[in-house]
């Protein structure tokens, strides 16, 4: 049977506890695919973060790291997870185009990664695994039956974290 595949678009944050389901963010460039997983409940979440910080409107918390990180952890806890039991991973934050940095030359992908790390630290958490940076895009999947995060690239093969 085809597994239940749930696409997480830019700026979205989705939670899922359907057995065997797969959360997926396609073709992350400078964006971050942030995953949270509770092995005890097989509950998972994925966010597709676009920017390090901002003041998104209600319902748009997934867009920026500063609102997305608290929202993903809060959402897991509201669904019954203990904070200490949440496994957080992230992937993305690449620099695809050498010219696509902000005008002062700072790479937005690195800023996204740093902002996620900083927001997690604020909550007393850190990533169990991360696969960030480089100059290539990543499609990221979170398998809810195992908590494995799979990364697929266009030119460099695929791996898991």
């Amino acid at each position, binding site marked *: 049977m085809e597994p239940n595949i749930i696409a997480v*678009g*830019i*700026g979205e944050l989705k939670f899922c506890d359907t057995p065997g389901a797969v959360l997926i963010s*396609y*073709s*992350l*460039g*400078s*964006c971050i695919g942030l995953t949270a997983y509770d092995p005890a409940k097989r509950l998972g979440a994925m966010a597709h973060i*676009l*920017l390090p910080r*901002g003041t998104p409107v209600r319902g748009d918390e997934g*867009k920026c790291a500063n609102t997305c990180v608290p929202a993903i952890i809060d959402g897991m806890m509201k669904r019954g997870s203990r904070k200490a039991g949440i496994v957080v991973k992230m992937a993305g934050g*690449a620099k*695809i*185009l*050498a*010219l*696509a940095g*902000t005008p002062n030359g700072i790479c*937005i992908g690195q800023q996204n990664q740093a902002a996620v790390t900083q927001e997690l630290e604020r909550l007393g958490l850190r990533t169990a695994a991360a696969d960030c940076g480089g*100059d*290539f*895009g*990543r*499609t990221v999947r979170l398998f809810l039956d195992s908590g494995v995060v799979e990364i*697929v*690239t*266009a*030119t460099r093969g695929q791996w898991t974290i």
Partner: protein
Amino acid sequence: MAENDKLYKAIAAGIGEARKAFELMVPVKVSITTPDLEPVPLTDLPALVGAADRTVVATYARVTGDITGHLVFVYDPDTARRLAALVTGEEEPGEDMGPSAVSEISNVAGSQVLNFLSNATGLRILPSPPVYVSDMAGAILQSVLYDLAPAADEAMVLKTEISLGDEEAAGFMILIPGSAELALLVNRLGS
């Protein structure tokens, strides 16, 4: 929308020049469709040229000067290879020559459109040197969002399809002005 009509006409005329530039560099007939100029939600941008995770070849130039923006050419990998072969006159252009040829022809064609806009508005509009990349279409197109997303939920996107010879359309030219710049362009064209 009447104001955007003027912008549309100026760009359409510029695209005619881009087509001529293409044909000067390759020995086949080149078609570039009449452009679509429409607002696109930023969340839809990665899938602008088909599936976001499709592998493509692209060249990217940042638009600078009196206005800012993004100029992207996206090609199916087979089309990029064919384009490189046509430009260089070699069946199998070398590893450096292929990307260089694709970047060059894209840059020349894109510059024609920007020149035309520049002449029509009196604004300085310049492309940066192009960057060549082969990756997922979505990852490439997503790279311009850092610039647009803080200020807007959608972008005015100009998109045309390019075909070589009898081939079906297999390339795209995409121009995305910064949101503030669009008003400036329209304003200048109206005066």
